[in-house]
């Protein structure tokens, strides 16, 4: 059940964004991150914010969920905002409570940086909220394809990622079981003096490692038996499907970049 909580970041759905090709989504996010840095004025940041909200809307992910899941990130956001306000001393003095002085430029900077941060966090989160980890892996494998030329073991990397995704829930269960078994023997990383807690980690990690090795040996044998001998000559069962909408999304992004450039001051 635990596994649902982490991979709970991925919310299955059928929105336009969900159905986009993972390659398109990953490229989109990378290009978007670069484009964000073009913005430098109220209008351009406004455009960015509007665009981001549009994407959120299209993904049919509830804004509430998005914000709720990003609580720690928002604390950082507020912190950033405040720091900019208090430490920038340019432009007109807007407010003055004794030692706290807020300048116009500080407020401007604070708002701009916050918006930039917000749109970055939203767009990157939308990627992982609408794409299953395994599709992300597929996307990465194809996108890294060209690097095969420089001897980057792309196929192996992708397979490793998918095997580890597959074993994460299993190892999580295992961790829970070992924790309980050692608790029943009087050792507990959840209570007692710090030294004891650190000591209690050893009886936990060693069985965890041993079991992971055992599983690795078994799995390697099972793969060999099923004819695995590296990436050459393999075909793919999962097919990615690049459609018009995917090309369109990248075009829209180009449009966005053009607009930002135009309104930039």
């Amino acid at each position, binding site marked *: *059940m*635990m596994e*649902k*909580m982490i991979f*709970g970041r991925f919310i299955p759905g059928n929105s336009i964004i969900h159905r986009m090709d993972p390659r398109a989504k990953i490229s989109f996010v990378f290009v978007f991150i670069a484009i964000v840095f073009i913005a430098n004025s109220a209008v351009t940041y406004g455009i960015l914010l509007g665009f981001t909200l549009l994407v959120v809307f299209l993904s049919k992910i509830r804004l509430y969920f998005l914000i709720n899941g990003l609580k720690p990130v928002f604390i950082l956001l507020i912190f950033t905002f405040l720091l900019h306000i208090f430490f920038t001393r340019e432009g007109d003095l807007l407010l003055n409570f004794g030692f706290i002085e807020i300048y116009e430029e500080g407020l401007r900077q604070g708002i701009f940086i916050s918006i930039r941060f917000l749109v970055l966090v939203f767009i990157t989160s939308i990627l992982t909220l609408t794409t299953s980890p395994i599709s992300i892996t597929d996307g990465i494998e194809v996108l890294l394809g060209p690097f095969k030329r420089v001897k980057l073991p792309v196929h192996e990397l992708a397979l490793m990622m998918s095997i580890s995704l597959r074993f994460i829930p299993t190892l999580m269960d*295992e961790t829970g*079981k*070992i924790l*309980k*078994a*050692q*608790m*029943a*023997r*009087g*050792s*507990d990383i959840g209570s007692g003096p710090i030294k004891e807690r650190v000591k209690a980690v*050893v*009886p936990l990690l*060693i*069985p965890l490692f*041993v*079991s992971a090795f055992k599983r690795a040996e078994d799995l390697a044998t099972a793969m060999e038996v099923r004819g695995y001998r590296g990436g050459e000559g393999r075909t793919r069962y999962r097919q990615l499907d690049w459609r018009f909408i995917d090309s369109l999304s990248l075009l829209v992004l180009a449009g966005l970049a053009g607009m930002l450039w135009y309104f930039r001051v």
Partner: protein
Amino acid sequence: MDILLREVGYSYAKDTPFEKRALTDVSLHIPSGSYTAIIGHTGSGKSTVLQHLNALLKPTEGSVTIGERKIEAGVKAKNLRDVRRQVGIVFQFPEQQLFDETVLKDIMFGPLNYGVTEEEASRRAHELVEQLGLPSEVLTKSPFDLSGGQMRRVAIAGVLAMEPDVLVLDEPTAGLDPRGRREIMDLFHQLHIQKGLTTVLVTHSMEDAARYADSVAIMHKGRCVVTGEPEKIFSNEEQLRDYSLEPPRTIRLQRKFEDKAGIKLGAISMTEEALAKNIALAVSEGRDSE
């Protein structure tokens, strides 16, 4: 030591969107010195009940009383270590908890955690290794160098070394070969008799439940639906089937024989030996009456 579950409810991941109810309204009394078998279909909540018996899980509803301690839903329970020492759990595949450099150290781990002296812990380890039928050379070996069956025994010794009053077993023989299975089950029975250990066994083997237990509880969909003597529970085959369970093979054979011969054997046979005796008796009587 008496254990009493009163209207226990338990939900995994409570108060999250992933909440999963595993137990509903479970009431169960495990009297001191009894041998109780808990049976039930996969996923019926057996392992979840079991973890309440030594407070590894705390009920989300109702209460669990373990000896003098009462653990209630919603009430913060402190210092459960004493309870955990008194109630030892052998989990499924217990060899997965082994970690120390040598078998000796691993067996001593539990007692040392509970403040037993080094000498005493080592004495217990030596004694247990012998009792479990392992050669004493294993004490100096790494637990990872042993065979599967030996590792299982060492892990069991690690729980017994804490000298619990109650021994809780979650399918302790899963994955062993027939001989290993029998030896380990006999060992637990012997401990139950000799040391007066209160024993709770979760098992899928109706034969083991019938052979060893003096009280049986059936779990079904998170509820404890029936408790009673094994003779009574296992002779009610319809009820067993309602809970997706099969009667023990001895009873199946007895029924087949009874149907064919058109008689009723006096008693229900809980072991193969008893069945053989009962049938032999019936056959000789049958002949005499001809």
